[in-house]
């Protein structure tokens, strides 16, 4: 239990650091599990956690679109009408407006998405999207290192 708590803290610290580097208000993580289910794994704060949990529940949102299409999904304002926003999701996470979801890959395989968010709507500049992709690679390195160095055997 202590070890799992340490893993959780490490992932949360990583998310906080990545959000800081990008200058975003927060970051959150959705990953495919060993049964190929997309799971809301982590958020750097309550809003991030809610953003992912709601997507898991309603089956739509930038993280899910990013994973489905395998591309970056930059949403300037969640409240915008489809296809630019996700008004259904926005209603449940009023503290989040702009979202950037980048796909995470391990050896070419999609394993999930890293999501950055801001509390005000704004346009995601290409340089920031590119930085988000690089930060996604760092997230994958942390996950890989954890996966190969942690006692995580057993089935869910």
């Amino acid at each position: 239990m202590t070890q799992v708590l340490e893993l959780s803290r490490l992932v949360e610290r990583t998310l906080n650091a990545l959000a800081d580097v990008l200058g975003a208000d927060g970051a959150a993580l959705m990953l495919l599990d060993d049964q190929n289910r997309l799971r809301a794994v982590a958020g750097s704060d309550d809003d991030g956690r809610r953003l992912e949990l709601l997507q898991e529940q309603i089956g739509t949102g930038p993280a899910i679109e990013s994973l489905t299409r395998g591309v970056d999904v930059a949403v300037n304002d969640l409240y915008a009408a489809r296809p630019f926003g996700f008004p259904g999701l926005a209603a449940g996470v009023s503290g989040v407006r702009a979202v950037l979801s980048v796909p995470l890959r391990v050896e070419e395989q999609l394993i999930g998405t890293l999501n950055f968010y801001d509390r005000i709507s704004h346009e995601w500049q290409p340089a920031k999207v590119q930085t988000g992709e690089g930060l996604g690679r760092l997230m994958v390195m942390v996950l890989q290192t954890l996966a190969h160095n942690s006692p995580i055997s057993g089935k869910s």
Partner: protein
Amino acid sequence: MTHIDPDALVASLRRVQTSSSTTGIVQQLERAVGVVDTLFGYSGAGLMFAEEGKDLRYLVTTDDRGRSLEGAQLHLGQGPCVSAYAENTAVTSTDVQVDPRWPKLADRLHPEVRAVAGVPVRLGGDPVGTLNVYQSKPYEWDESDVQALYGYADVIEQLLTAAMAAEEKSALAEQLQYALDYRVVIERAIGYLMGKHDLTATQAFTGLRKQARDSRRRVADLAAEVLGEGAGETR
């Protein structure tokens, strides 16, 4: 309180474990510094480590110009990275070639190493090394540069901590020490290839690293092989 679902995290890590091969911490650190270098868009980046009570040495550097930072600081026992490590805080220099804090550094530095910034990399709160970036022209580092560098250093700390999850700190130190030791072999191989094929250090190292990756070998092993062949030629 964390904002994490521990069960989902463990189940997802299990998937990552099965879909990727094991990668050593040193290789991950190399990749991480490469990402930092790319994202910053500066001239180069490096990661220095200090064995307990010993000098700060480069574990990873993106190019040979930046490498001169280590040599100069090792020789003089001072410089921006040494200060960042010793004082456990960010240290920046607009132009290290004319910085009055380290007047003798310029003589030993590559002329294209100008603006330097370094932040400590910590484990358990204590500094174990520094993450450094440099520019080939004078540059006024601002607060956002330093904060971003701290953020990257934080991610590197999490990488190191993740690597320690199943190992003692001493085992991790052994791996890092191994990398530092074998770097000497790599540098000798680079020197040999430069002489034999009339290459720059960067070209020699890039070629060596590519060949190692293509043949799924460690750079150190390939370097040792190259040196073995070189020794055979001179006999």
